[in-house]
């Protein structure tokens, strides 16, 4: 019976794959980006048509949390930001300056925190559930919350309109 013979090898192969797959030490491997930063994007009204917005690059961005060291200092031409939120408090406030000559805005996030045990290799990460986000309106026109739950860095959570 040739089919039975092939079957035998197939089962043997499957067996080997499972054996190797279950052998690696899970505590040594983390196969994902576990940073849970708030991902911001900058949008600007199209000068020709005010109903359409487009991505915009800001001239010289400086960002820091109030009373802390700067996160970004006079960074040129960025279209978005990844802001780490405070793991120990339910609010985070940031000083946000788009250009060195212009007035700065204050960005505020209010959220709930939920620690989450991702895997043996990645350990515990913090998930955030944003209740609200707002800012002063010197340069920023409005703050839009597009994804409330921050569980990964790979989504756009907040859109800043200028």
């Amino acid at each position, binding site marked *: 019976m040739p089919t039975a013979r092939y079957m035998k090898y197939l089962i043997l192969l499957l067996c080997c794959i499972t054996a190797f797959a279950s052998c690696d030490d899970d*505590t040594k491997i983390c196969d994902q980006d576990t940073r849970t930063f708030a991902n911001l994007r900058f949008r600007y009204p199209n000068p020709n048509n005010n109903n359409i917005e487009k991505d915009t690059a800001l001239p010289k961005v400086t960002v820091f949390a109030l009373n802390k060291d700067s996160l970004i200092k006079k960074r040129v031409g960025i279209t978005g930001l990844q802001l780490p939120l405070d*793991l120990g408090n339910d609010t985070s406030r940031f000083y946000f300056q788009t250009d060195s000559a212009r007035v700065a805005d204050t960005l505020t996030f209010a959220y709930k925190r939920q620690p989450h045990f991702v895997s043996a290799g990645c350990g515990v990460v913090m998930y955030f559930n944003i209740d609200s986000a707002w800012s002063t309106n010197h340069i920023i026109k409005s703050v839009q919350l597009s994804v409330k739950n921050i569980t990964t860095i790979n989504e756009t959570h907040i859109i800043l309109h200028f």
Partner: protein
Amino acid sequence: MKRTLSSIFSACFLLLTIGAGAQDKKKDSVKPLVVEVPAGLRIGTDLTRIAMHFFQPYRTDATITLDARYKDRIFFASDISWNRTSHSDTSYTYKGNGLAIALGVNYNLLKRQVPKENFMLFGGMKYGFALFNYELPAYQVPGSYWGDYHGAVPSSSKTAHWIELSVGVKVEVLKHFYLGWSLHDRLLLTRKLSKGDYPPMVIPGYGKGNKGNVFDMQYTVSYLIPMYKVKQKMNL
């Protein structure tokens, strides 16, 4: 005992030859032969659980496999497992231990059977249940800008249920002494455990606690304690 066994075997062979002769004469009139073969409780252990400790030092597992022939092709089967998990590194410490039992049936798929040969190619289905507890005595979430977050999860008892499908073989290598291996697929029914905020690292008898579906294998060494006889059909 030995005498009775050998006489059974010789009787079987006698029947076999008669049957074979009958088959030659007239195929349609052949009825399946029914012979009595010794059966009993087969007790074994899963060697992969012992090997696992060397690849995954945080896991210590032990599994006892039991099965007993009920009818011609049907075997009642059970796995009793124990697990202890302990891990500690810079980002978290974890402690857990517990017991599990899986109960079900194995069905022998081999068509042609000579009573003397105790080979088995089986498909099986089991229901698994685990009672265990675990804790994260300390963990930290790294935060390079705002500072780290420190937390702990106190010890709690949990139960888990799953359905297990398996295929495998068992071969008698010495009298009453069996070697076998099998593949297992386990589907967790207690999904809120794996989807929760703190899924257990290991569910005893199941595997990784953050997976709803787990693939596994066993390599068993077992011993048959003959206890009773089972009627076995023979298709010649």
